[in-house]
């Protein structure tokens, strides 16, 4: 029976390897085509420039000015592209690390940025405006002394706020997505928010109860696509030609008008009851849930293997192995998971020059972080087995590995089960952290849906309920397994 268990572990490991290579393989295949393919980072909630549908893609009827512009340019200039929706901060890091070839996210051209990136021809002029809650009495910057204002990190609004902070005496709070930021103003945590004019006006049009109080946009600046400096020159040329062509033929103006003049909105759900929201976003929620489950299951399997190795190294008589195990556990337990995720997805490609697919980066993050915890659990479980068991097994002449496998491991595993189950549940919750690097799991799905329907409270309640339901199911399952093992 024991051999069977070990065989299962072995097969699981092979399966896992297979899945990972599969993912890597699929990713590589995308590159094969006659026309060049470029990867472009976008800002996931940057309407009207980019508007995701509830699946997290831009396949909807009104995907935004930039997305439609790119579609036309790509057709005209003969290239293909993959879009990577991320937070703006993530966009910048992704470009610097070479994960993407360009950023197209309503990015204003500043002198500071010009030193770091190459910019395309500008296709829009945008400025920062200040918005407050609909019923707020604040009308100007001078009323903000001691109050909290908000912007997205790295945006021109943020640069403006930083520059004038001493003058007006406000505190700055940063958010990764416009929508969360606006909601914070709506509920009164933030007094005023600073965002690009078209973006905020679009949000208000969509039903966000804010009002713009700036008479005129501050710091009006050209908006353009950013590239890595002195790289991808052919691509840069194609984009510039494309923009020039769109401007000359009036196509660009038509697009801008479409999104800012008429009342274009992604069709809003009229039914905003819980059931209505669930029904309207069923496919997106299921997609997110499926991604979360995949991440959890594959992540925990990888983490189990990694943790088992760490645990076994940790109890070996070899001092070097012990030190290696405790160092790895120390490092990865000490690192916040979000830092680890950024490091793997953005940092490693910076060093090696090889891109890491998003899902793989997510799995690696989970494997290292949760694996370190599992390593500590495994080591603790093995250590908790009575020393007399080792002595009895070894005194019979069983070598170390056989004593471990036949006598110590089965007893240790039994001790570990409750902690492992707990770690499994933690892993499920931790997958939400991967939304930071843009993985479309359940939490990220929620962010995207809310950016369209503005139903923050109800949607987060629905997302929360989904998590609680899966965790409840998991807990039942684990109780059943423990009962059978006991």
């Amino acid at each position, binding site marked *: 029976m024991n051999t069977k268990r070990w065989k299962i572990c072995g097969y699981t490991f092979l399966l896992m390897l297979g899945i990972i290579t599969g993912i890597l393989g699929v990713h590589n295949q995308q590159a094969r085509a006659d026309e060049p393919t470029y990867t472009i980072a976008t800002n996931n909630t940057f309407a009207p420039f980019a508007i995701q549908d509830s699946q997290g893609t831009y396949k909807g009827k009104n995907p935004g000015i930039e997305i439609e512009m790119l579609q036309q340019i790509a057709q005209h200039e003969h290239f293909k592209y993959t879009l990577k929706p991320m937070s703006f901060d993530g966009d910048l890091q992704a470009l610097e690390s070479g994960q993407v070839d360009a950023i197209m996210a309503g990015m204003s051209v500043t002198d500071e940025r010009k030193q770091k990136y190459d910019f395309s021809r500008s296709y829009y002029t945008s400025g920062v405006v200040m918005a407050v809650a609909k019923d707020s009495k604040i009308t100007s910057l001078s009323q903000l002394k001691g109050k909290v204002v908000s912007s997205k990190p790295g945006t021109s609004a943020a640069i403006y706020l930083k520059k004038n902070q001493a003058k007006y005496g406000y505190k700055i709070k940063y958010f990764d997505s416009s929508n969360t930021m606006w909601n914070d103003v709506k509920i009164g945590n933030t007094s005023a928010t600073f965002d690009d004019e078209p973006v905020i006006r679009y949000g208000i049009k969509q039903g966000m109860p804010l009002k713009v109080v700036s008479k005129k946009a501050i710091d009006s600046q050209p908006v353009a696509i950013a590239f890595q400096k002195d790289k991808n020159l052919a691509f840069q040329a194609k984009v510039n030609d494309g923009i020039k062509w769109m401007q000359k033929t009036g196509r660009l103006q038509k697009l801008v008008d479409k999104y800012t003049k008429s009342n274009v909105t992604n069709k809003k759900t009229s039914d905003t009851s819980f059931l209505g929201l669930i029904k309207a976003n069923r496919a997106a929620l299921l997609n997110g849930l499926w991604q979360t489950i995949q991440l959890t299951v594959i992540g925990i399997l990888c983490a189990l293997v990694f943790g088992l190795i760490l645990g076994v190294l940790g109890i070996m008589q070899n001092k070097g192995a012990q030190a290696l195990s405790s160092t790895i556990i120390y490092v990865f337990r000490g690192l916040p998971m979000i830092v680890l995720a950024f490091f793997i997805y953005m940092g490693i490609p910076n060093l090696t020059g090889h891109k890491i697919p998003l899902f793989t980066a997510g799995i690696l993050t989970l494997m290292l972080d949760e694996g370190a915890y599992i390593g500590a659990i495994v080591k603790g479980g093995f250590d908790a087995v*009575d020393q*007399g*068991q080792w*002595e*009895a*097994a*070894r*005194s*019979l*002449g*069983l*070598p170390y590995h*056989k004593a471990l496998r*036949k*006598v110590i491991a*089965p*007893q240790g595993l*039994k001790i570990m089960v409750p902690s492992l189950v707990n770690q499994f549940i933690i892993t499920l919750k931790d997958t939400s952290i991967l939304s930071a690097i843009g993985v479309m799991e359940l939490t990220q799905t929620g962010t995207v849906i809310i950016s369209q329907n503005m139903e923050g409270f109800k949607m987060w309640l629905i997302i929360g309920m989904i998590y609680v339901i899966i965790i409840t199911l998991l807990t039942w399952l684990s109780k059943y397994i423990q009962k059978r093992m006991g």
Partner: protein
Amino acid sequence: MTQAEQYKVQVTDLHKSYGKNEVLTGISLNVKPSEVVCMIGPSGSGKSTFLRCINKLEEANSGQIIVDGHDITDPQTDINKVRENIGMVFQHFNLFPNMSVLDNITLAPIELHKATPEQAKKDALHYLELVGLKDKANVRPQTLSGGQKQRVAIARALAMKPDVMLFDEPTSALDPEMVGDVLQVMKDLANDGMTMIVVTHEMGFAKQVADRVVFFHDGKIREQGTPEEIFTNPQHPDTKSFLDKVLNI
């Protein structure tokens, strides 16, 4: 006859310390085939540590230990091979709770390819019969009494067909009414000619069964001799005072 053949276990000037605490200070002891040596002495005198050095559960700091002609203090020696021929019985039995009584006994012979699974099972049932527990083959150790557990532990050690058996206070953790059964099994073993080294507080057993009684005190062998010599005419004052304490309760 060479020395190695003359003695089953040959220990020369064994030293062992934990940090600064010297537990064994130069022990030498030779055990002949089929000899039964009982080691007595106060707790902390080093007798258990000495026993555990013989199958290298504790590593000696210096000195030489030769078992069956194998020098186990030599790092080149495959200790697992030597251990196959040294059975050990512990105070707390140390049965494997994750397997049945039968599997406890057949595990090592099967894993170490000493017997086919069928043969190992047959042997196991034979040894269980020997210790009077044939009907318990398929139960888990947790359901057994202390005395039964210890007899299973003896059967488990015997299943490797060892040349030497080490007993580390085998009856100390037992309820008094269980002690007799275990001692009886050990007596039978001794009568069958097994070489045995027994750390024990059972003076009655030592008197009856031992060929030689060794008195440990402060990490040294203070005195040794036949049971009669030690129990009726101890020479060393430490031996006398120890025996006064344990025999006059």
